[in-house]
């Protein structure tokens, strides 16, 4: 039981993620979470704004059900299957975080300095809105996110996915090393 309640090592987690991919493949589907954002746009009337959103929502229902399941999974995993809420990051990471004035790694799963409702000032609100926008815009521009490109695409040796993952890192490294020092220091 302790094994389940503590943080899962990468060599368990990675193969389990590809198992999710295969469970979908054997049902005639593909593993790609960000497509749901497009479906949500279609449901909310986006089909009136662009032909990009003229899709048969019915064909994508399974993916919305999948993502609804993952919300429930997040609830179960966090509340019933976790002993500690904190994350087992390396000591060096902790030192960098402390230099940014972020201390919540000691008790929390994600930085409360950024996400806690009580701390939602203009700055944090801007971070969440801009971050979300970049994710939604970028994933659809690139035609997929971590699940569709990094896992599904690279495991099929798709060249396009390799470019996309290079892009993910160009963006991620830029944010972490060039923007974060301005934001947090």
């Amino acid at each position, binding site marked *: 039981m302790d094994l389940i309640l503590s943080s899962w090592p990468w060599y368990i987690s990675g193969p389990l993620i590809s198992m999710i991919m295969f469970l979908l493949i054997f049902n005639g589907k593909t593993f790609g979470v960000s497509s749901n954002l497009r479906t949500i746009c279609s449901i909310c009337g986006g089909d009136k704004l662009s032909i990009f959103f003229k899709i048969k929502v019915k064909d994508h229902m399974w993916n919305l059900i999948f993502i609804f399941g993952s919300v429930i999974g997040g609830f179960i995993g966090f509340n019933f299957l976790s002993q500690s809420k904190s994350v087992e990051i390396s000591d060096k990471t902790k030192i960098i975080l402390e230099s940014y004035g972020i201390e919540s790694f000691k008790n929390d799963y994600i930085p409360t300095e950024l996400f806690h409702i009580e701390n939602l000032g203009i700055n944090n609100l801007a971070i969440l809105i801009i971050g979300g926008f970049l994710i939604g815009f970028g994933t659809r521009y690139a035609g997929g996110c971590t699940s569709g490109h990094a896992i599904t695409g690279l495991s099929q040796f*798709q060249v396009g996915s390799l470019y996309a993952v290079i892009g993910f890192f160009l963006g991620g490294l830029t944010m972490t090393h060039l923007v974060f020092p301005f934001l947090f220091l």
Partner: protein
Amino acid sequence: MRNLYFFIIGIAFGIIMIKSEAASWFRIFEMFNFESFHMYGIIGSAIATGFTGNYFIKKLNLKDLNNNKIQFKIKENTYRRYIIGGSIFGLGWALVGACPGPMFVLLGAGFYSILIVIFSAVIGTLIYGILKEKLPH
């Protein structure tokens, strides 16, 4: 019945995202600082096992449960949309520490401010859809 199946796979996915800590901003921050092997191990071992499975699917001509041959769609032969779009996504991924899957998982875990991220991501997708024809691909 099929819907129940996808629902259960979704639950499993959510639990894996929480327990692997891939849904944690701290792990993404650590990854982009190259301070731990953890995230690289997760993505790397998922790709390795995924590749092995895909190899046998092709080799054995496996069919899915609907009795259709499993085929992999080849992605477009271009690099611009992948590099540009990927970089934009990467900026957001590092900033809020969650990609589209973990966003929903975190909502279930009770981090309600992630709703702002999800809402903005839908708006981002909507704006992309509107501008699509004007963007280089």
